């Protein structure tokens, strides 16, 4: 297709000064949509947890988790911990030995490099570079709609 409009449009959007995007192909990167959760893990001496969207969406539609099970669209925003998981909430709705393998497989979930912050890997917000973009920060507080900033919660 003609990309003429794209060049003009990109220039227009960029005049807002927020965008530094690349397709990221060929760079070292984790899989698109991988979520790292590290609200508590570092402090507890566990590796941060990794949730791979690509793996789960082969098996489940988004609605199963984000509507039926109540996961909010926000990396780190569900404040998941082991008590809730063992109680059958969040990951524990499936990782209970019946829908999927159970909680004793600590290292399958806790698999990130120590110190990796809470984030969605390869998200536009991360690519936007400066997490200091003010309005994006404000968005993170909108109900269910916003998302964590590049650094997320620690």
């Amino acid at each position, binding site marked *: *297709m003609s*990309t003429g*409009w*794209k060049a*003009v*449009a*990109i220039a*227009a*959007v*960029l005049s807002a000064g*927020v965008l*530094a*995007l*690349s*397709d990221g*192909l060929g760079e*070292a*990167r*984790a*899989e*698109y*949509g*991988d979520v*790292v959760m590290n609200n508590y893990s570092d402090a507890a001496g566990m*590796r941060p947890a*990794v949730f*791979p*969207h*690509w*793996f789960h*969406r*082969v*098996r*489940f*539609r*988004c*609605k*199963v988790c984000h*509507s*039926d099970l109540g996961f909010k*669209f926000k990396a780190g925003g569900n404040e998941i911990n082991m008590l809730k998981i063992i109680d059958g909430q969040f990951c524990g*709705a499936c990782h209970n030995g019946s829908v999927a393998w159970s909680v004793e497989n600590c*290292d399958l979930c806790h*698999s*990130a*490099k*120590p110190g990796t912050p809470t984030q*969605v*890997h*390869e*998200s*536009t*917000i991360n690519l936007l570079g400066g997490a200091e*973009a003010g*309005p994006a920060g404000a*968005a993170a507080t*909108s*109900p269910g709609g*916003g*998302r964590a900033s590049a650094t997320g919660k620690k």
Partner: protein
Amino acid sequence: MVLIAEAPIAAETVRRWLPLAQDGLHDPANPALRLLQEPSVALSRLPSDRVGNQVNWVAALEGGHINPRTNILPESRVRMIDLDILLNLRGGTPIVRFPHRQHTLWLDCSNCHEHLFKSKAGANKFSMERILKGEQCGVCHGAVSFPLTACERCHNTPRNKPPPAAAVRGS
């Protein structure tokens, strides 16, 4: 400061996925790493795309390559709607034809209505800048669904042709 890489890549390029141990995210020292599935094993079998997971997830679902479950709780409902809405009617870029059908194959109405979008054509004030900041369409596109670099998948309907039938005019 500003950098756009419009990758000059042909439609059929060789797709490569980094091994987990080298993806910069997983800890290679984790003994359980080898038990996890490598993205290349699962994703190379699915219809290709240039961006995101390098998988066209709509084609994967519609073509029967995957059959993700719609529920694990027996009482949960599956709701679908086939309704296209035309957005960005006044801008300079191609019109955005928002398809409900492809979205409700994956999502429930409550994932968008009413907290992200009012369910009334023309009732929402969209902005590309807010989308790029991860709001509106950008809540999913740019995080999990195909990323915002794929401009023409949203800006998908030429302006100089009469608008396609069976589509509601939004904003």
